[in-house]
């Protein structure tokens, strides 16, 4: 039954994304999902020590990709049928989005899969827990400098970014899958899937502003992109968390902002679409610490650190420590009791520019959004971009969405 509701919207997405003709979830569609070849992203999750769901239960949350392969998709942190715990979450249930009727369930890892087939000499596969969905219906887009009393553009937005905030991956790797759906009252509409190149590979921007060279990216030939990944690092963080008596730790620096810059471009350089949402995560379960094993420091561990009279002070560390044999110890970074688990996130929708006034609505681009043309090719991804020009000569910025939500729940913990 779970498979059916998950697969049904998926079949719709198949119809929209690759021109399938069957818009109805039928027994044969469900059968297709059961027999579909698995994508590399499918079946890669396995339960940790406190997760009570089996991989089989997890794998029921699947959907067909435009390529006919089986992909993982959104599921709640707790299995609704058995009550078992997955230990991770994928953000907001997309079934409430006004766009989901057209998009269907979101296949996690489709752009990564297409990258394998594109013949670009790159492979990039991401873990399962990092796929995070956010959406909002009927948000108001602000015309720059405007009051909104006369012009008011409203949009439905549905976004998925692979944004893992528990491992060293994003310290060096700038390629992350982004699924971006937006439909606005000014006829701006995009349904885009790509590998977003967020800043330069091998480096990131410290939460304090400096650029930190963190190693070699995977793949090593990852292309650079606009924007950056602003991540907390030890040199910036420790002096703000470990503070003297009478001071409060500044946990606000324990914050990641992945500032993307994405475009769909033709081979001759014409930019058909541009959008630059920022993805922010509060209290992730990691920070960059070159002195630590794997260069990954754990914020929750700072709750038990004392340097002379300096230590973490503030409510964020409440309940995070205990005394064992006279020593102060923190809960494990992957303990569900830790508040440093990356379950609070927000997206700044920002700009959504379309320059496709006389163009077709269907384009095929490579997984990076480049070389867009009107016919499919190996490794291409079908992109929908409405036939409008929405450059009004001023910035038209979307709002923040998701900032008031907390996706934590029973058993949710790092890695998340």
């Amino acid at each position, binding site marked *: 039954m779970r498979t059916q509701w998950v697969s049904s919207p998926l079949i719709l997405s198949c119809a929209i994304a690759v021109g399938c003709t069957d818009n109805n979830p039928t027994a044969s569609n469900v059968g297709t999902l059961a027999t579909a070849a698995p994508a590399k992203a499918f079946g890669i999750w396995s339960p940790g020590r406190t997760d009570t769901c089996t991989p089989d239960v997890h794998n029921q949350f699947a959907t067909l990709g435009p390529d006919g392969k089986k992909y993982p998709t959104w599921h709640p942190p707790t299995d609704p049928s058995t009550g078992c715990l997955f230990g991770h979450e994928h953000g907001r249930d997309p079934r409430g989005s006004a766009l989901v009727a057209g998009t269907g369930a979101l296949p996690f890892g489709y752009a990564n899969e297409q990258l394998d087939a594109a013949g670009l000499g790159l492979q990039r596969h991401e873990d399962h827990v990092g796929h995070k969905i956010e959406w909002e219906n009927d948000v108001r887009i602000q015309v720059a400098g405007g*009051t909104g009393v006369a012009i008011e*553009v409203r949009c439905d937005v549905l976004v998925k970014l692979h944004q893992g905030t528990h491992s060293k991956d994003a310290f060096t790797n700038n390629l992350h899958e982004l699924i971006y759906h937006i439909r606005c009252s000014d006829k701006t509409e995009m349904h885009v899937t790509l590998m977003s190149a967020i800043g330069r590979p091998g480096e990131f921007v410290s939460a304090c502003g400096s650029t930190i060279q963190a190693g070699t990216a995977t793949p090593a030939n990852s292309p650079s992109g606009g924007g950056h990944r602003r991540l907390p690092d030890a040199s910036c963080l420790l002096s703000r968390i470990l503070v003297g008596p009478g001071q409060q730790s500044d946990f606000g620096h324990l914050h990641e902002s992945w500032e993307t810059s994405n475009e769909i471009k033709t081979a001759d350089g014409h930019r058909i679409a541009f959008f630059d949402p920022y993805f922010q995560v509060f209290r992730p379960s990691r920070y960059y610490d070159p002195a630590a094993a794997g260069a990954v420091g754990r914020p929750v561990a700072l709750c038990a650190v004392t340097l002379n009279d300096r230590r973490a002070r503030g409510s964020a560390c409440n309940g995070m420590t205990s005394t064992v044999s006279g020593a102060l110890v923190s809960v494990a970074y992957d303990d569900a009791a830790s508040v440093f688990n990356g379950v609070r996130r927000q997206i700044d929708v920002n700009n959504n520019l379309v320059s496709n006034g006389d163009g077709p609505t269907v384009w095929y681009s490579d997984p990076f959004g480049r070389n867009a043309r009107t016919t499919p090719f190996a490794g291409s991804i079908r992109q929908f971009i409405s036939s409008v020009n929405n450059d009004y000569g001023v910035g038209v910025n979307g709002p923040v969405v998701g900032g008031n939500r907390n996706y934590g729940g029973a058993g949710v913990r790092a890695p998340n």
Partner: protein
Amino acid sequence: MRRVHCLLLVAPLVGVTVGFPVRARAQPAPASGSVATNSTTELTMRAAVRRLADEHGVWASLGVGRGAASLDCDACASATTRAYSLQGTLGIRLSPRVLVGAETFAWLDVMGGQADRVAKGTYLVARGYRSVASKVFLQAGAGIASFEVNDGEVRFRTSSPSLSLTGGTDWRIDQITITPAIGAVGSIGGHLKSNKTGNSIADDARLGVLRATISLSWFR
């Protein structure tokens, strides 16, 4: 009876009714001999208008008003607001009961901040009185209406064919005529375009303006 009703319905549009005009517009000016003499040589539009004016009389009015305007489109804020307007009309009298001319109006709403909205329209109008003695008229027009939205750093403007309909009455006080009226204009299908790029933010803009006006009118 049915025929009378039909006439009443059509009168605002074509101005064909029977009766006598009010005194201010009831005495056509005598035909000018010089214009009549030169009518065969002065074939320009200006000469024709002058001749019509001399033979039939001219009509002008200048008024102020207050009214509500709304621009309805998928990207338009839904607020209908009230503001003041100006209007002017210039025309000629075709008959004691029928006036034709051109009318223009502007409606300005300063909404605060950097936002304001301006509605403008220019119409060819025909005004008909129910009878020669009647002070009450209906006026219909066809023309172009525009609506301009200034919001922040960009201005959006739409312009499209428009219809107008006005009802009012003439109050003769000594040598002047005061004309209170209520009028509406409407248009559909406008493209609301940025002044900076020419790109349209909406292709379905519908404009509506409802105004109460008071004008000073002159009939000669």
